């Protein structure tokens, strides 16, 4: 009689269990502290200045999966890319209204609602792109978050010579600004404890990415600078899970990175050979509570890595730890330093992309590094914590 937690009722069990645990706001364990004032994101480390611009696309071939009254899927795309232009207006991190909706949705109080709009970035707004034969990286954010929460990573990759295509998937974030002053709020949040929710999200995001890749040449005048044979995708949380789903579905995407996301897409039983890297917090060690990486690991038959960052949490690969001070949140005791977390994320994501899109050898990915002692290579060199 070992079956009390029966999988026959798995659907409802999961539903009920997750209904008990509302998604936690970012870094909820932190005690309130005096806000530090606006943050400047860490400077990009590559040789190129960075430009950025925003596109709005509309896929009329399918209805929106969340807004039942929208008969087309709208997408907001933020591009970051190398430019020659060093000077010019820096792009806003987000607008005051976007900051407000994100903070309200995340239940962050005690700081002015426009706080995040004061964050200083490095990319020059609407600068002319430069370079030729550039590899492309799609970025997909975590659930409830706009893709601007991955700006630190995006700017750094662009400075290293990548065209970064950040996608906002409307209604899956507390805020997505759409044309004509409209804001999509988080309709998907209504059903995020339903069984099968994650599977539905990653299916939808894979379709979003394929549509963006289809349309980019006609929608962005810098597209001629892209080498379309060198495309990868990375994402945080459900965005990372969506990278897996997209790779499986769209053969144009050659390699993928999942930053701490439980995965949902079904890898073909025969295995999957394209390069893939998991980078996670200690919640994602082999044999942990989330079985999805163990499950997928067996089916990944090509180049693969599973890295776990000591002291990291679920948001470590996003800008949120960098912004914690401005939001009056004290990091949990023992947490990885925010700047260090950003540095590790940038370093290892870039190493993966340089290896698989630029064919550059990356010793960093072959074995543990004395300069990066926080990074454990799983499953061999990391125990269950």
């Amino acid at each position, binding site marked *: 009689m070992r079956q009390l937690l029966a999988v026959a009722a798995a659907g409802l069990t999961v*539903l009920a269990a997750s209904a008990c645990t509302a998604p936690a706001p970012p870094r909820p364990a932190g005690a309130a502290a005096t806000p530090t004032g606006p943050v400047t994101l860490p400077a990009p480390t590559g040789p190129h200045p960075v430009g950025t611009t925003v596109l709005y696309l509309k896929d009329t071939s399918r209805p929106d999966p969340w807004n039942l009254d929208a008969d087309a899927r709208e997408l907001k795309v933020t591009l970051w890319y190398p430019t020659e232009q060093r000077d010019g207006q820096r792009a806003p991190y987000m607008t005051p209204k976007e900051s407000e909706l994100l903070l309200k949705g995340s239940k962050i109080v005690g700081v002015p609602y426009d706080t995040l709009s004061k964050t200083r970035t490095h990319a020059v707004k609407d600068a002319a792109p430069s370079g030729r034969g550039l590899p492309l990286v799609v970025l997909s954010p975590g659930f409830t978050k706009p893709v601007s929460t991955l700006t630190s990573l995006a700017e750094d990759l662009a400075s290293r010579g990548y065209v970064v295509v950040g996608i906002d998937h409307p209604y899956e974030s507390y805020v997505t600004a759409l044309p004509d002053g409209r804001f999509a709020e988080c309709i998907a949040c209504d059903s995020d404890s339903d069984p099968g929710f994650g599977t539905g999200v990653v299916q939808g995001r894979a379709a979003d990415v394929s549509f963006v890749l289809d349309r980019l040449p006609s929608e962005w005048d810098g597209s001629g600078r892209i080498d379309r044979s060198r495309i990868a995708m990375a994402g945080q949380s459900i965005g990372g899970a969506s990278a897996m789903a997209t790779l499986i579905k769209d053969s144009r995407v050659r390699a993928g990175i999942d930053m701490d996301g439980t995965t949902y897409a079904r890898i073909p039983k025969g295995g999957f050979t394209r390069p893939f890297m998991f980078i996670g917090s200690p919640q994602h060690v082999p044999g942990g509570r989330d079985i999805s990486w163990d499950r997928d690991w067996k089916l990944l038959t090509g180049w693969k890595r599973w890295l776990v960052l000591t002291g990291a949490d679920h948001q470590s690969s996003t800008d949120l730890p960098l912004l914690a001070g401005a939001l009056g949140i004290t990091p949990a005791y023992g947490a990885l330093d925010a700047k260090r977390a950003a540095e590790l994320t940038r370093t290892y994501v870039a190493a993966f992309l340089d290896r698989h899109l630029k064919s550059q050898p990356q010793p960093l990915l072959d074995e543990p590094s004395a300069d990066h002692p926080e990074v454990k290579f799983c499953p061999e060199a990391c125990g269950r914590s």
Partner: protein
Amino acid sequence: MTAVRTAAAGLALLLAAACTAPTPPRSQASAAAGTACARPSGSLGAETPTTVDVIEQAYFCILDRYHAGAVLDARSLLAAGFLALTQELNRNGRDVPEAIMPALTGDRKADWAAFETAYRKVTDRVPDLRDKLAVTTLEAIVAALGDDHARWAHDAGRPPDSYDVDGYGLGLQVSVTSLQAGGDPGAAIPPLFVTAVQGGAAQAAGLRPGDIIEAVNDSAPFIDGRATPAVAALYPDYPEARPVELRLLRQATGRRWSVTLTPGLFPQDPAALRVVQSKLLEDDVAYVRLRGFASDAANRVFKAIARLRTGRTLSGVVLDLRDNGGGSPAETTRLLSAFGHGKVTAYQCTVDGECEAMRTDDTVELLGLPLVVLIGPGCPSACEHFSAAVKDLRLGQLVGTRTAGAVSGPASSYLLSNNTLLGFPSKHHLGPNREVIDRIGVPPDHHVPPTAEDAAAGRDPALAKALTLLHK
């Protein structure tokens, strides 16, 4: 086998209810200090083996916190545990001379000490069976409460290769629910037939709704009109993987054949798993299928109805609760509040009859639409709270068949020292007229039973009846 089945359906209810059940008052604090259990907080640690200390903790936890804990004869729990212990020894061919039930006096602490001494004597003789015997004993003690909402969740395995949309089993549902098959099948009536093919082995074997199951593993599903234990094999729980042989009859063609179905994982359509599903029927009826009273369920139902109502005049709402897993009493009351104000939807009572009224939230806007609720044996717990309130308070009409009769009270979970969860209600549930609904269920106002013929033809007579009522 029997208790296993009940567990499957019931755990969901337990967990869901655990979200909202109030913490029991401290006045019920343990007589045996240091053994009482606490509510879990944070994520569970890794499960460790069940020991006699865990059994002791569970025993005093029940006596402290279970709604009838203060009045129940604790000797009945220990006797049930000891009986299961001896049976497990015997099944393993290892009965021992020391396996004698100790004399009990009715003093709960002294009786535990006597039990523990006897228990240790037995298990010391068969150290290799120690873990298994502890599990069997504790399961029997919990089962002795005879309460569908009393559960011990342990060894919570999930198939390592499963995805979040995967179900486990044969991939079918039949006219006897899993709750009935595992608990009290008294309300089940013949014939046994397939009501839904979800995927997996059943789909691969070509089964269809309406197919009559004449035998399960060569045993009749009904004898003299009463369901037999054979039916339970249709709802295997992981890791059970024994193939199940079915003898089938397709009435339309007269074909008789046999299939062997092996339990396993099967993918499901995420859209079909959504907790709230809605559509417009006959241009003026909002049909909402609610699969559980999950957090925010009421608001999601309101949104769905508001959307269907935009730009048209509705003649009513059909709320389909026939495969609702139960859930939160607070969400139940909130949903009821859209159909009536100033009402008591249920009572939650202590063993000495002190009852807390669950009142409608009168800040919820009234929908002002006629309501028909579809019910059946797949409507337990919070779903019966809802159904009974609709009936007693005349908020709408109930169509279908009697509900599950599994609403003992909102269950709370308690953490045991080996990182397993013990759950049970600290109060018992009564309907708006203070009637007992547990075990008895809520009868429909319009009895429309499902039939194999309707299932085969894809007809839904209960829904048809609901639409007729709304268009009268």
